Protein backbone atom coordinates (compact mmCIF):
# COMPACT_ATOMS: atom_id res chain seq x y z
CA UNK A 1 0.00 0.00 0.00
CA UNK A 2 1.31 3.44 -0.87
CA UNK A 3 2.27 5.69 2.07
CA UNK A 4 2.10 8.86 -0.03
CA UNK A 5 -0.16 11.65 1.22
CA UNK A 6 -3.39 12.06 -0.67
CA UNK A 7 -4.55 15.70 -0.22
CA UNK A 8 -7.98 14.94 -1.63
CA UNK A 9 -8.54 12.07 0.80
CA UNK A 10 -7.24 14.17 3.70
CA UNK A 11 -9.63 16.99 2.83
CA UNK A 12 -12.52 14.51 2.72
CA UNK A 13 -11.52 13.06 6.09
CA UNK A 14 -11.25 16.52 7.65
CA UNK A 15 -14.72 17.40 6.34
CA UNK A 16 -16.17 14.15 7.67
CA UNK A 17 -14.57 14.62 11.10
CA UNK A 18 -15.89 18.21 11.26
CA UNK A 19 -19.36 16.99 10.33
CA UNK A 20 -19.26 14.22 12.95
CA UNK A 21 -18.08 16.64 15.64
CA UNK A 22 -20.86 19.06 14.74
CA UNK A 23 -23.44 16.26 14.88
CA UNK A 24 -22.06 15.12 18.20
CA UNK A 25 -22.32 18.64 19.61
CA UNK A 26 -25.92 18.90 18.44
CA UNK A 27 -26.84 15.54 19.99
CA UNK A 28 -25.40 16.59 23.35
CA UNK A 29 -27.64 19.64 23.45
CA UNK A 30 -31.01 17.97 24.10
CA UNK A 31 -33.20 20.40 26.02
CA UNK A 32 -31.28 23.41 24.78
CA UNK A 33 -31.79 25.72 21.84
CA UNK A 34 -28.93 25.19 19.39
CA UNK A 35 -27.55 28.16 17.47
CA UNK A 36 -27.66 27.15 13.83
CA UNK A 37 -25.76 28.38 10.80
CA UNK A 38 -24.82 27.05 7.37
CA UNK A 39 -22.27 24.70 9.00
CA UNK A 40 -24.69 22.77 11.18
CA UNK A 41 -28.20 23.50 9.91
CA UNK A 42 -28.62 20.52 7.58
CA UNK A 43 -27.07 18.04 9.99
CA UNK A 44 -29.33 19.37 12.75
CA UNK A 45 -32.41 18.63 10.65
CA UNK A 46 -31.07 15.18 9.72
CA UNK A 47 -30.56 14.28 13.37
CA UNK A 48 -34.02 15.26 14.58
CA UNK A 49 -37.18 13.64 13.29
CA UNK A 50 -39.09 16.64 14.67
CA UNK A 51 -37.33 20.00 14.81
CA UNK A 52 -38.46 23.53 15.61
CA UNK A 53 -36.39 26.42 14.28
CA UNK A 54 -36.78 30.03 15.42
CA UNK A 55 -35.66 32.64 12.87
CA UNK A 56 -34.65 35.88 14.60
CA UNK A 57 -32.46 38.98 14.34
CA UNK A 58 -30.76 41.26 16.84
CA UNK A 59 -32.88 44.29 15.94
CA UNK A 60 -36.18 42.40 16.21
CA UNK A 61 -37.91 43.24 19.49
CA UNK A 62 -40.69 40.61 19.19
CA UNK A 63 -37.97 38.00 18.71
CA UNK A 64 -36.76 38.71 22.24
CA UNK A 65 -40.27 38.38 23.60
CA UNK A 66 -40.63 34.98 21.93
CA UNK A 67 -37.17 33.66 22.79
CA UNK A 68 -37.91 32.52 26.40
CA UNK A 69 -40.96 30.60 25.13
CA UNK A 70 -38.76 28.61 22.76
CA UNK A 71 -36.21 27.99 25.53
CA UNK A 72 -38.93 26.78 27.87
CA UNK A 73 -40.37 24.40 25.25
CA UNK A 74 -36.88 23.06 24.51
CA UNK A 75 -36.56 22.06 28.16
CA UNK A 76 -40.02 20.50 28.24
CA UNK A 77 -39.64 18.56 24.96
CA UNK A 78 -36.08 17.20 24.96
CA UNK A 79 -37.05 14.66 22.26
CA UNK A 80 -37.54 17.57 19.83
CA UNK A 81 -34.65 19.50 18.29
CA UNK A 82 -34.91 23.21 18.98
CA UNK A 83 -32.70 25.60 17.06
CA UNK A 84 -32.43 29.27 16.25
CA UNK A 85 -31.11 30.97 13.13
CA UNK A 86 -29.94 34.57 13.04
CA UNK A 87 -31.53 35.59 9.74
CA UNK A 88 -29.18 38.54 9.18
CA UNK A 89 -26.12 36.34 9.55
CA UNK A 90 -27.63 33.43 7.61
CA UNK A 91 -29.77 34.95 4.85
CA UNK A 92 -29.32 31.89 2.65
CA UNK A 93 -31.08 29.66 5.22
CA UNK A 94 -33.86 32.20 5.78
CA UNK A 95 -34.23 32.59 2.02
CA UNK A 96 -34.46 28.85 1.47
CA UNK A 97 -37.61 28.74 3.61
CA UNK A 98 -39.06 32.06 2.43
CA UNK A 99 -38.76 33.75 5.82
CA UNK A 100 -40.04 37.28 5.18
CA UNK A 101 -40.90 38.52 8.68
CA UNK A 102 -39.47 37.94 12.13
CA UNK A 103 -39.81 36.07 14.32
CA UNK A 104 -40.83 33.06 12.26
CA UNK A 105 -40.91 29.60 13.80
CA UNK A 106 -40.79 26.70 11.35
CA UNK A 107 -41.67 23.13 12.30
CA UNK A 108 -39.80 20.33 10.50
CA UNK A 109 -40.58 16.64 10.18
CA UNK A 110 -37.91 14.43 8.64
CA UNK A 111 -36.10 17.55 7.48
CA UNK A 112 -39.09 19.01 5.64
CA UNK A 113 -40.97 22.15 6.76
CA UNK A 114 -44.54 21.20 7.66
CA UNK A 115 -45.89 24.18 9.60
CA UNK A 116 -44.95 27.68 10.72
CA UNK A 117 -45.92 30.43 13.14
CA UNK A 118 -45.17 34.11 12.59
CA UNK A 119 -44.84 36.69 15.38
CA UNK A 120 -44.40 36.70 19.15
CA UNK A 121 -47.17 34.27 20.04
CA UNK A 122 -48.01 32.69 23.41
CA UNK A 123 -46.51 29.30 24.28
CA UNK A 124 -49.83 27.53 23.63
CA UNK A 125 -49.83 28.45 19.94
CA UNK A 126 -46.52 26.74 19.39
CA UNK A 127 -47.17 23.87 21.75
CA UNK A 128 -50.45 22.89 20.08
CA UNK A 129 -48.64 22.48 16.73
CA UNK A 130 -45.81 20.64 18.38
CA UNK A 131 -48.14 18.19 20.09
CA UNK A 132 -49.92 17.59 16.82
CA UNK A 133 -46.60 16.79 15.14
CA UNK A 134 -45.67 14.45 17.96
CA UNK A 135 -49.04 12.72 17.66
CA UNK A 136 -50.04 13.61 21.22
Amino acid sequence: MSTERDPELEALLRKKIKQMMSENRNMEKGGEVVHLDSENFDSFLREHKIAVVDFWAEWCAPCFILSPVIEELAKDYPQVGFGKVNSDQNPQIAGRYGVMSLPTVIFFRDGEPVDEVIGAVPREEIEIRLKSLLGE
Partner: protein
Amino acid sequence: MKALLIGVDGLSYTSFMKCNPRFLMSLFGSTFRGVVVNRRPQTHESSWLSVLGMDYSGKPNEGVPELAKATGATLVNVPISDPTTGIVSLKIHEVRLEDELNQVTEAVLESLNRGPVIAGIVGLDVELHRGSLDKCKAYSMVDSALRKMVNAADEFIVFSPFGEPKAPSESEHEEYGIYLSTVPRPSEHETVKLPEIGLLFRKLVG
Protein backbone atom coordinates in the same frame (compact mmCIF):
# COMPACT_ATOMS: atom_id res chain seq x y z
CA MET B 1 -43.99 70.26 24.85
CA LYS B 2 -43.41 67.82 27.71
CA ALA B 3 -40.53 65.53 26.73
CA LEU B 4 -39.37 62.59 28.82
CA LEU B 5 -36.35 60.33 28.52
CA ILE B 6 -36.60 57.54 31.07
CA GLY B 7 -34.30 54.56 31.45
CA VAL B 8 -35.07 51.51 33.57
CA ASP B 9 -31.88 49.51 34.03
CA GLY B 10 -32.42 45.76 33.74
CA LEU B 11 -35.81 45.92 32.00
CA SER B 12 -35.97 43.24 29.31
CA TYR B 13 -38.29 42.12 26.54
CA THR B 14 -37.51 38.54 27.59
CA SER B 15 -39.86 38.86 30.59
CA PHE B 16 -42.71 40.54 28.73
CA MET B 17 -44.45 37.28 27.84
CA LYS B 18 -44.11 35.83 31.34
CA CYS B 19 -44.94 38.95 33.37
CA ASN B 20 -47.29 40.67 30.89
CA PRO B 21 -46.66 44.31 31.91
CA ARG B 22 -49.84 45.70 30.39
CA PHE B 23 -48.81 49.30 29.83
CA LEU B 24 -45.45 48.35 28.33
CA MET B 25 -47.17 45.79 26.12
CA SER B 26 -49.58 48.44 24.89
CA LEU B 27 -46.64 50.76 24.15
CA PHE B 28 -44.97 47.85 22.38
CA GLY B 29 -47.95 47.56 20.07
CA SER B 30 -48.47 51.27 19.47
CA THR B 31 -45.11 53.09 19.42
CA PHE B 32 -41.79 52.94 17.60
CA ARG B 33 -39.74 50.15 19.10
CA GLY B 34 -36.26 48.78 18.96
CA VAL B 35 -33.65 46.67 20.68
CA VAL B 36 -30.85 48.43 22.57
CA VAL B 37 -27.55 46.63 22.29
CA ASN B 38 -24.86 47.06 24.94
CA ARG B 39 -22.10 44.46 25.22
CA ARG B 40 -20.66 43.29 28.53
CA PRO B 41 -19.41 44.55 30.89
CA GLN B 42 -22.35 46.90 31.47
CA THR B 43 -22.58 49.16 34.51
CA HIS B 44 -25.17 51.79 35.36
CA GLU B 45 -22.58 54.53 35.12
CA SER B 46 -20.80 53.56 31.89
CA SER B 47 -24.08 52.85 30.11
CA TRP B 48 -25.76 56.10 31.12
CA LEU B 49 -22.69 58.18 30.35
CA SER B 50 -22.86 56.80 26.80
CA VAL B 51 -26.52 57.80 26.55
CA LEU B 52 -25.71 61.27 27.82
CA GLY B 53 -22.84 61.68 25.37
CA MET B 54 -20.02 61.50 27.89
CA ASP B 55 -16.95 59.30 28.06
CA TYR B 56 -16.52 56.84 30.90
CA SER B 57 -13.30 57.73 32.72
CA GLY B 58 -13.72 55.42 35.70
CA LYS B 59 -13.39 58.46 37.97
CA PRO B 60 -16.22 60.07 39.94
CA ASN B 61 -18.36 62.01 37.52
CA GLU B 62 -18.64 65.76 37.85
CA GLY B 63 -20.40 68.48 35.92
CA VAL B 64 -23.57 68.70 33.92
CA PRO B 65 -23.94 66.06 31.19
CA GLU B 66 -23.78 67.36 27.64
CA LEU B 67 -27.29 66.13 26.83
CA ALA B 68 -28.78 67.92 29.83
CA LYS B 69 -27.02 71.15 28.76
CA ALA B 70 -28.18 70.79 25.16
CA THR B 71 -31.81 70.09 26.01
CA GLY B 72 -32.15 72.05 29.25
CA ALA B 73 -33.50 68.87 30.82
CA THR B 74 -34.01 68.35 34.53
CA LEU B 75 -32.11 65.29 35.78
CA VAL B 76 -33.92 62.88 38.11
CA ASN B 77 -32.05 59.98 39.71
CA VAL B 78 -29.63 59.50 36.81
CA PRO B 79 -27.04 56.83 37.73
CA ILE B 80 -23.91 58.52 36.39
CA SER B 81 -22.68 58.77 39.97
CA ASP B 82 -23.38 57.11 43.29
CA PRO B 83 -25.52 58.52 44.82
CA THR B 84 -27.41 59.15 41.60
CA THR B 85 -27.44 62.59 39.97
CA GLY B 86 -30.41 64.94 39.94
CA ILE B 87 -33.26 66.26 42.03
CA VAL B 88 -33.78 62.73 43.32
CA SER B 89 -30.44 61.33 44.43
CA LEU B 90 -30.24 57.83 45.90
CA LYS B 91 -27.45 55.51 46.96
CA ILE B 92 -27.54 52.82 44.30
CA HIS B 93 -26.84 49.81 46.52
CA GLU B 94 -29.38 50.87 49.11
CA VAL B 95 -32.22 51.51 46.65
CA ARG B 96 -35.57 49.86 47.24
CA LEU B 97 -37.56 49.74 44.04
CA GLU B 98 -40.90 50.81 45.45
CA ASP B 99 -39.49 53.88 47.23
CA GLU B 100 -37.43 54.81 44.20
CA LEU B 101 -40.43 54.57 41.86
CA ASN B 102 -42.52 56.76 44.16
CA GLN B 103 -39.85 59.43 44.46
CA VAL B 104 -38.96 59.44 40.77
CA THR B 105 -42.59 59.48 39.63
CA GLU B 106 -43.37 62.45 41.84
CA ALA B 107 -40.29 64.37 40.70
CA VAL B 108 -40.90 63.60 37.02
CA LEU B 109 -44.56 64.69 37.15
CA GLU B 110 -43.55 67.98 38.79
CA SER B 111 -40.57 68.62 36.52
CA LEU B 112 -42.37 67.92 33.24
CA ASN B 113 -44.35 71.14 33.80
CA ARG B 114 -41.08 73.09 33.61
CA GLY B 115 -39.40 71.40 30.63
CA PRO B 116 -37.75 68.20 29.39
CA VAL B 117 -36.84 65.52 31.92
CA ILE B 118 -34.17 62.81 31.94
CA ALA B 119 -34.85 60.17 34.61
CA GLY B 120 -33.41 56.84 35.68
CA ILE B 121 -34.61 53.81 37.65
CA VAL B 122 -31.97 51.44 39.00
CA GLY B 123 -34.00 49.58 41.62
CA LEU B 124 -35.26 46.87 39.27
CA ASP B 125 -31.72 45.82 38.41
CA VAL B 126 -30.51 46.18 41.99
CA GLU B 127 -33.37 44.09 43.41
CA LEU B 128 -33.06 41.43 40.68
CA HIS B 129 -29.37 41.13 41.51
CA ARG B 130 -30.24 40.87 45.20
CA GLY B 131 -32.99 38.35 44.48
CA SER B 132 -35.09 40.24 47.01
CA LEU B 133 -38.22 40.76 44.90
CA ASP B 134 -40.39 38.55 42.72
CA LYS B 135 -39.60 39.48 39.14
CA CYS B 136 -43.15 39.81 37.86
CA LYS B 137 -44.15 41.83 40.91
CA ALA B 138 -41.23 44.17 40.20
CA TYR B 139 -42.28 44.43 36.54
CA SER B 140 -45.80 45.26 37.60
CA MET B 141 -44.56 48.07 39.86
CA VAL B 142 -42.35 49.49 37.11
CA ASP B 143 -45.19 49.19 34.60
CA SER B 144 -47.56 51.10 36.82
CA ALA B 145 -45.06 53.92 37.48
CA LEU B 146 -44.20 54.20 33.79
CA ARG B 147 -47.89 54.51 32.96
CA LYS B 148 -48.16 57.60 35.18
CA MET B 149 -44.97 59.23 33.89
CA VAL B 150 -45.40 58.46 30.18
CA ASN B 151 -49.04 59.53 30.18
CA ALA B 152 -47.95 62.90 31.58
CA ALA B 153 -45.51 63.45 28.70
CA ASP B 154 -46.27 64.54 25.14
CA GLU B 155 -43.20 62.84 23.69
CA PHE B 156 -41.10 60.15 25.31
CA ILE B 157 -38.35 57.59 25.04
CA VAL B 158 -38.54 54.61 27.41
CA PHE B 159 -35.43 52.49 27.27
CA SER B 160 -33.21 50.13 29.22
CA PRO B 161 -29.45 50.30 28.68
CA PHE B 162 -29.15 46.54 29.23
CA GLY B 163 -31.36 43.57 30.10
CA GLU B 164 -31.74 41.45 33.20
CA PRO B 165 -28.83 40.25 35.33
CA LYS B 166 -27.06 37.18 33.91
CA ALA B 167 -24.69 36.55 36.81
CA PRO B 168 -24.12 37.74 40.38
CA SER B 169 -21.58 40.22 39.03
CA GLU B 170 -23.14 43.66 38.84
CA SER B 171 -21.73 44.27 35.38
CA GLU B 172 -23.16 41.15 33.71
CA HIS B 173 -26.56 41.44 32.09
CA GLU B 174 -28.37 40.41 28.96
CA GLU B 175 -26.84 42.45 26.16
CA TYR B 176 -30.19 43.65 24.89
CA GLY B 177 -32.40 46.35 26.35
CA ILE B 178 -35.71 47.85 25.30
CA TYR B 179 -36.55 50.99 23.29
CA LEU B 180 -40.13 52.27 23.06
CA SER B 181 -40.73 55.79 21.85
CA THR B 182 -42.76 58.39 20.04
CA VAL B 183 -39.59 59.13 18.05
CA PRO B 184 -39.09 57.12 14.87
CA ARG B 185 -35.58 55.88 14.18
CA PRO B 186 -33.94 56.28 10.79
CA SER B 187 -33.08 52.59 10.43
CA GLU B 188 -35.47 50.37 12.30
CA HIS B 189 -33.80 47.20 11.04
CA GLU B 190 -30.75 47.99 13.14
CA THR B 191 -30.18 47.78 16.87
CA VAL B 192 -30.26 50.97 18.96
CA LYS B 193 -26.84 52.09 20.20
CA LEU B 194 -26.60 53.95 23.52
CA PRO B 195 -25.34 57.30 22.14
CA GLU B 196 -28.14 57.18 19.56
CA ILE B 197 -30.70 57.37 22.39
CA GLY B 198 -29.27 60.72 23.51
CA LEU B 199 -29.24 62.02 19.95
CA LEU B 200 -32.86 60.96 19.44
CA PHE B 201 -33.89 62.75 22.63
CA ARG B 202 -32.05 65.87 21.51
CA LYS B 203 -33.95 65.68 18.20
CA LEU B 204 -37.22 65.13 20.03
CA VAL B 205 -36.72 68.24 22.21
CA GLY B 206 -35.74 70.20 19.07
